[in-house]
């Protein structure tokens, strides 16, 4: 029974991951972006749970709960907390939505081309979905370079990180549990630190526009 549903579930979860990433490029409101990020965290947790059920490993199920708690709940909560404090929550990115979505399409095609060369020897269902993870990494980069607000940059970083986790789970069933713990803790701490810095930035500059960080140069 599960064997027939498994490819569909993998497809559903990775589809949700790609869709949320594309929507993140499209939406400019920070609060909406954070909700999308939370949905993405849930989709990633579901993907991990599906892989865990297929492999029948309890460790992977534990990891999926961890992913759900950290990426689905804790991180979006921290971000939302930060964003409510800002007066301006709308983003004026360097790319308009149409150009952004076209770039997303290009990046997705690119990652399929790259992955087909990388994983040519692997015919498993999960490896077929691995390009989605790569596309998410690239979309994360796109968000990082095109956004001006500190909060949006953070979201780009988190999409990048979700993409890496997706690649890890799809290509090798995830890294060992203790590493997953270490990596999640590191990401959580980085976000908290950037959150504190964004707060200091608001105190000093009155907003969190990172374009004003131009004082130090040669």
């Amino acid at each position, binding site marked *: 029974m599960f064997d027939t549903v498994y490819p569909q579930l993998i497809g559903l979860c990775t589809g949700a991951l790609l869709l949320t990433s594309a929507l993140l490029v499209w939406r400019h409101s920070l609060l909406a972006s954070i909700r999308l990020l939370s949905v993405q965290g849930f989709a990633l947790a579901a993907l991990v749970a599906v892989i865990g059920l297929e492999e029948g490993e309890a460790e992977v199920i534990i990891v999926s709960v961890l992913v759900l708690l950290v990426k689905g709940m804790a991180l979006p909560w921290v971000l939302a907390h930060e964003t409510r404090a800002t007066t301006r929550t709308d983003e004026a990115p360097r790319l308009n939505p149409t150009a952004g979505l076209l770039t997303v399409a290009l990046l997705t095609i690119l990652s399929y081309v790259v992955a087909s*060369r*990388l*994983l*040519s*020897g692997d015919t498993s269902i999960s490896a077929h979905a691995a390009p989605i993870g790569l596309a998410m*990494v690239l979309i994360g980069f796109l968000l*990082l370079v095109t956004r001006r607000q*500190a909060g949006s*940059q953070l979201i780009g*970083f988190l999409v*990048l*990180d979700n*993409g*890496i986790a997706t*690649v*890890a789970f799809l*290509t*090798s069933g995830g*890294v*060992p549990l*203790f*590493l997953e713990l*270490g*990596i999640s*803790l*590191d990401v959580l*701490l*980085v976000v908290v*630190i*950037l959150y*504190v*810095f964004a707060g*200091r*930035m608001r105190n*000093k*500059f009155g907003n969190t526009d*990172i374009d004003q*960080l131009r*004082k*130090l140069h*040669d």
Partner: protein
Amino acid sequence: MNFALWIPLAVPVTLAVLSLTGGARPPGRLGPVASSAAVLLSGLLLVGAVLAGDIPSLGGGLLRADALSAYMLTVVGAVGLVSTWGGLGHAAAAPGRFAGSYDALISVFLAAMSLAVLADNIGLMWAAVEATTITTAFLVGHHRTRSSLEAAWKYVILGSVGVAIALLGIVLIYAASRGTGEPTLSWLVLSRTDLPLDPALIRAGGALAVLGFATKAGLAPMHSWLPDAHSQAPAPVSGLMSGVLLAVALYAILRIQTITDAVIGPDFLRVMLSIGGLLSLFVAATLLIRQRDFKRMLAYSSIEHMGMMAVGAAIGPAALPAVLLYMLGHGLTKATLFVISGRILEVEGSPRIDDVRALLVRRPGLAVPWLIAMAALVGFPPFSIFFSEVGIIVAGFGAGMGVVVGIALVLLLVIFAALTRLTVAMTVGAPTVGAPTGTAPGSVRAAPDRSAHGPRLPLILALGTTAVVAFIAEPVGTLLARAAAVLGGAQ
């Protein structure tokens, strides 16, 4: 000897907790120094064990000290000791209400670097390297000015994104090891030459991992955070970051290189590292010529030296002993210079080279060690940087990389001239009356200030060590040869 693997992790963390709870009272301020001493001590213990033919390991092989790890741990401890001990005067001058957390973060930073070099697992090492970014983020932003906030933001964003790329590479390397039946991230297993690793995945994974760690190592073109972070951080932190954190990132690159070389041959990373190295030298040369800030000058000099080390890594086994010696020499020299730069900044009140003139006449207590350390930095013998650079250049010609080494040599000469000019501008000359700001009126013509403005002994020890270390064949030479052998340099 296995207990020595615990010391550099447990002692600094314990001291960090004590610093947090103990506050800013004087004995509490010694926490970072004690942490560095513990790391150095266990490094030396492990070196002793390794030279006796033992390879201590702990936690089912999760922590492991081969010759390379033991050597790196010693470098971390030695550079840490110079930075923290030499920085005591600096830290004491500004106790503030953040002193406890400042000391605690430095101790945890030292523990994270120790974990990075002792871990026999690429994933664990990755987590430790990311932890160094986390612990140093607030240290870079310690002064809470606009500039330090800007530097810290750039540092954390670029540092974590770079290290995230490395994680993607590590994930691909992990996927490549599925063919062996038991997927693994252990250095020891992965660098065995007989493993059926997937070449395409190793190529992509190795490239991404090296690219990511190169960001952390400050190699061009991913260097842009480095001058900002290193110039805005408090001097002891700059010393630690410039002197040893960059070397730890390079250590990660060297380990990854061992894995990729065994699977797809040395040419692939050789090209990447040569380009990165030469580009770093070029960036450093162009920006040092017109440099106005002496802390940024030191930061660009770190990019230069990391570039030279990357060229050495590209050359391969023949240059590796020189590269490893380079890490120690550069670390000690750079830590000394940053400590002195912190003192100069404190007494002169300006980081601009134009504002700091005629130091040799006005403040010989600071100018003399500064001059000696700058001489070591630009590569005068008998200091070990000279021998490392010569070793890399000779090995490069021997390995048929004459063009790369030739370009590097030209850039080194440009940097030599630029650094010499800036140093002379700061130290030599007659003081102008009333010109320097931030000094008491009348002090210009008064008796020269012979005070070192802080502990002298760590600086003397650091410079003394770099001056003699290249001449000690036993045990330093043996240790370097064995450490290079770990990286496939066995002859």
